[in-house]
């Protein structure tokens, strides 16, 4: 068995399930938001805010943000461990992978924190 410190779910099974479950949540969230716009062809900002700030929708948006973070990390970690190899980067491969994953973690953190601040009106 191959062990690796960077995977999110610790096993391939967990990563596999998490990636697909998070994709389902993101798809449902996208359909939900898209559906609202489809049902409200002439939307106003006030109507959207009223709908989006309802508790159920805030929880759904939080779940979608968490799913995005999970999905992004598993996907980018996979890309990082596939492509950042000594064949392409020589002795800087590990450093380059670290920059890639560090950048992914930073961007994901900022995106999720920003999203949570908006969803829960913390600003």
């Amino acid at each position, binding site marked *: 068995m191959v062990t690796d410190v960077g995977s999110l779910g610790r096993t391939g099974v967990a990563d596999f399930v998490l990636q697909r479950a998070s994709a389902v949540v993101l798809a449902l969230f996208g359909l939900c938001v898209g559906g609202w716009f489809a049902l409200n062809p002439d939307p106003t900002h006030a109507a959207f805010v009223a709908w989006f700030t309802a508790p159920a929708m805030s929880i759904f948006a939080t779940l979608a943000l968490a799913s995005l973070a999970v999905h992004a990390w598993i996907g980018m970690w996979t890309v990082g461990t*596939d492509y950042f190899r000594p064949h392409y980067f020589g002795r800087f491969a590990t450093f380059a992978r670290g920059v890639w994953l560090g950048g992914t973690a930073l961007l994901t953190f900022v995106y999720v924190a920003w999203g949570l601040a908006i969803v829960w009106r913390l600003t």
Partner: protein
Amino acid sequence: MRVSLYRYNPDTDAKPRMEDLELELPQGKDLMVLDVLELLKAQDPSLSYRRSCREGVCGSDGMNINGKNGLACTTPVSVAAPRGKLVLKPLQGLPVIRDLVVDMTQFYRQYERVKPYLINDEEPPAQERLQSPAEREQLDGLYECILCACCTTSCPSFWWNPDKFVGPAGLLHAYRFLADSRDTADAERLAELEDPFSVFRCRGIMNCASVCPRDLNPSAAIAKIKTRLVSDGI
């Protein structure tokens, strides 16, 4: 016929090169690629490649033929090079020892990892462990692999993680024993494969199924292993 050959002799060459040759083929015969190599070797005995049975059973002469992995002995020149130019390179992703000969150590190391033998700790019966025809049928499409490495060396996931991803050939054999009604080590076998690399690096590209000279489908076997892992995991 024009033939472009990958040549590399570590004793004399600083780096590999492609050698372009012209070869007169006998009229009225559709030779196999291996026959072409034999004709070339008669001209230049230093040309190195593996071969043995010359009928697609031993799996020795796997190589990259006009961009696609296959066995030289069972690939007709007319199919491989319909435009009259044959390009022969060693299997990708493995170190080249010389010309078309590659070092298969990494391939066999991954094969060894899946414990490609029957494990059964129960008391053996007096004669043999029997299977029903239906149980035996489960092994069709799995046991025929000849370990030529055409599939594994055409798999990008193996190119990228040859030390971690088992590869299509090894995983086909892993499933061959998971599917065997006489084997009792399913939990042990699956535990060895549940990490993020060994099986789950397969992205379903299906190069393996595309190139297999025995028309096997390792990607289907890999999908079944994933299903077993996920269903057992949940």
